[in-house]
């Protein structure tokens, strides 16, 4: 027990660690949406809804009602990306880690109460540009360096329970949290030859707020088929400038996000899953003073799970998946499409009396984001651990 708590504490502490951005599309609009999923959903190409068994995922509030034991889940996600521009031979790269999901559930009042810390938007990116400044009629070379460090996350409190013998309903209520800092520095080098020219820097820091509510339903149509749906509504994402920030407070419209998912047991050891999502982000465009474009997004994912596969004598379900979705913000023009092939497996860490108390789910994704003239290829790993009845 102490070991579990120590591990979870360490994991939570790690969430506070500085991490870098995972995609060049972080620089588009208000950032790149980062879904809070575990290794199983990632491996199956799912949006995290309608999966078989019990799960604790923010996309599926209804699924929380199926949890019979106190449960905790923790997910870590490193990414390696390379991106390039059409017609350019230059390939740039980025890499970084995220902890997109930390959740706990506890059975209470005939249902399950949950608390989840989840990622929502990733905003880290940097940029630089050479500039020529005019000093008393004499042109001098300088450089601007920009860096944005920030992310939006949510903290959700939820409750789910069975409303029918085969149907559970869930509700999450929470707030947006997080900060973003934008810094622009001008480096003059040794423009005057005296070494006495000080760099220029301007910065701004905003903290995020806003309310978010999601509701979902999960129903077993039969012993073979499960369907689920959820809707997430937000009051809008507020960005409050700190006292030293010269920029103004801002508010961004966050669209209603709809999700549906289903899983079908084709045979005792073979499950197929599918899910889809839709959100009209175009409303946020009027809130973007930079002129960035936003679009309605849709996406779908399908996956296959060989649930009776075994590794080293233990049950280790194997999974493959594919998903395709659009990103809400574009760089330059066009629609940004994300396509991912994924695979993974689960390892049982602790099984007592036929009940799995601890598992780790591993997923590896190979994906591509392309839009406008920019193409980004990436590898992404997801490792999640789920503990029950501790």
């Amino acid at each position, binding site marked *: 027990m102490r*070991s*579990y708590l*120590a*591990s979870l504490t*360490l*994991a939570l502490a*790690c969430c506070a*660690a500085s*991490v*870098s*951005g995972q995609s*060049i599309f*972080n*620089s*588009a*609009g*208000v950032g790149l949406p980062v879904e809070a999923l575990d290794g199983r959903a990632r491996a199956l190409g799912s949006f995290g809804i309608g999966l078989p068994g019990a799960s604790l995922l923010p996309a599926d509030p209804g699924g929380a009602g199926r949890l019979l034991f106190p449960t905790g889940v*923790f997910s870590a996600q490193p990414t390696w990306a390379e*991106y390039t521009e059409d017609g350019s031979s230059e390939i*740039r790269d*980025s*890499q*970084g*880690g995220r*902890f997109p999901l930390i959740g706990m559930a506890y059975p209470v009042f005939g249902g399950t109460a949950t608390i989840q810390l989840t990622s929502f938007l990733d905003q*880290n*990116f*940097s*940029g630089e*540009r050479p500039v020529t*400044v*005019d000093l008393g009629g004499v042109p001098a070379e300088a450089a601007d360096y*920009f*860096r944005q460090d920030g992310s939006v996350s949510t903290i959700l409190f939820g409750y789910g329970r069975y409303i029918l013998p085969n149907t559970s309903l869930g509700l999450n209520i929470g707030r947006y949290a997080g900060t973003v800092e*934008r810094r*622009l520095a*001008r480096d*003059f080098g040794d423009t*005057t030859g*005296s*070494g*006495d*020219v*000080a760099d*220029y820097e*301007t910065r*701004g820091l*905003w903290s995020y707020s806003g309310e978010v509510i999601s509701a979902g339903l999960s129903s077993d149509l039969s012993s073979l088929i499960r369907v689920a749906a959820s809707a997430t509504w937000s009051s809008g994402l507020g*960005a409050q400038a700190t006292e030293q*920030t*010269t*920029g103004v407070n*801002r508010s961004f419209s966050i669209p209603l996000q709809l999700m549906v998912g289903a899983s079908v047991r084709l045979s005792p050891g073979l499950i197929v899953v599918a899910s889809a999502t839709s959100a009209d982000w175009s409303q946020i465009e009027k809130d973007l*003073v930079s002129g960035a474009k936003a679009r309605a997004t849709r996406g779908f994912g399908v996956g296959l799970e060989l649930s009776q596969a075994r590794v080293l004598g233990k049950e280790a379900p194997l999974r493959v998946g594919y998903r395709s979705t659009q990103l809400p913000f574009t*760089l*330059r023009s066009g629609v940004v499409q994300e396509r991912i092939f994924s695979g993974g497996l689960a390892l049982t*860490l602790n*099984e007592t009396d036929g009940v799995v108390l*601890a598992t780790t789910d591993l997923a590896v994704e190979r994906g591509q984001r392309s839009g406008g003239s920019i193409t980004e290829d990436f590898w992404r790993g997801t*490792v999640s651990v789920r503990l029950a009845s501790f």
Partner: protein
Amino acid sequence: MGTTINRSRRLLTVTLVAVSAGIVGCRETIPTSLDDAQLPGEPLTLEIELDWNQFGSGLEVFGGYGKPQELGAGIIAESYAGTLSARTLVRFAEYPTKASVVDATGTTREDDDLTYIGGRVMAWFDSDASTNTGPVDLVLGAVQQEWDGGTVNWSSAVDSVGVDIPWVEVGGGPVSVVDTATWDPAEGDTISFLVDSAQIAAWGDSSDKTRGARIELVTPGERLFMHAAFLHVTTRSSINPDTVLILTTPADQATFIYDHVSQPPANGVRVGGTPSWRTVLDLTMPDELTGPPELCAAAGCPFAISPQDVSFAGLSLRSRVTEDAAFQPSDSMRLDVRAVLSRDALPKSPLGESLIQNPFGTVIPGDFFGLQDGQLVEVPITSFVRDLLSEPEVSGRDRPNTLALISKAEPSSFAFASFHGPGSSMEPMLKLILTVSRPMELP
């Protein structure tokens, strides 16, 4: 059963720790934008100049910092610029009393019974800092009167608090002539004067307070800069009388005296010299700027300057021909600038640290104060101006707003630097390089 559970828990713990450490420990590389569209708008960098009456006041010149002895060099002149005569006084250290000598058997032994039979005074000049281009004649004399290296001047051999002993003859005299020599810069930087055994014996008496050598210039119209003088003592060994040794004795005290004291300029900036001159001035930054148009277009006017807006601040001075030709620089000058920490305590106010990052200060060619009158010299004071624009200190004390222009070391030259002062067509100005931008906003 229990063992299995424990093993599983250990495995789980190891997994969690490894995953967490792996993610956190991963090398992080932030994505870099491919174009400028995602970056905030470009800040505007522009240069403006403030006239003296927009920023400056209270300019004063103070003198008397440091002593000739602290220059660590000698000045020798004769009717230079028609007004300046200067002589260098040197008191040599005690002679070496021991030397290693090879005896008749070939064994090296220490000989502590040396006989001093003569010597030479060697003088090493700086041809760049000296005005002569041709040969000049010099005279080495032995001082006949008690003198004090720390307080001696042209008229007094000792001039300390409560004690003033004038020279019998102004200018460090009279002396008994030891030797004469000619220095021709084309042939080298060093000359030597022959010293006979009697004078060597006299200078060997360390209790004799008159002990000293005076080097003077005979050729009129020149000013020489002497790096150092030292004495080569010729000795005969008692162990092996056929062996003659030349042992070097450095100067124990070296200073110079001169007969022309410059007066502070009525209107101008003066820095350097021996003793050194300082110029202090008060800076007041305008609360706001109403131009130029490009500044107003970028940041709006009136524009209140904040410390971070100042990328560079420099005091722009214009060199001028030295008003007292005897002190015109013949070599480069090194300028420093520091904050005056207590204006009321001037001329003895403590100064802050150097505001110039270059450890050699602002180096100015000597020609700027002669033929090239009116040359621009920029003294960086960025950190000072930024401090001046900052909020008051926590203690409530006002930040210093007085600057002192000084030579990099005091004294570091016999000559001093001169600049045009307020009221002239080339009065000091304040150059500012400002960088301004619109407020940082979210996309």
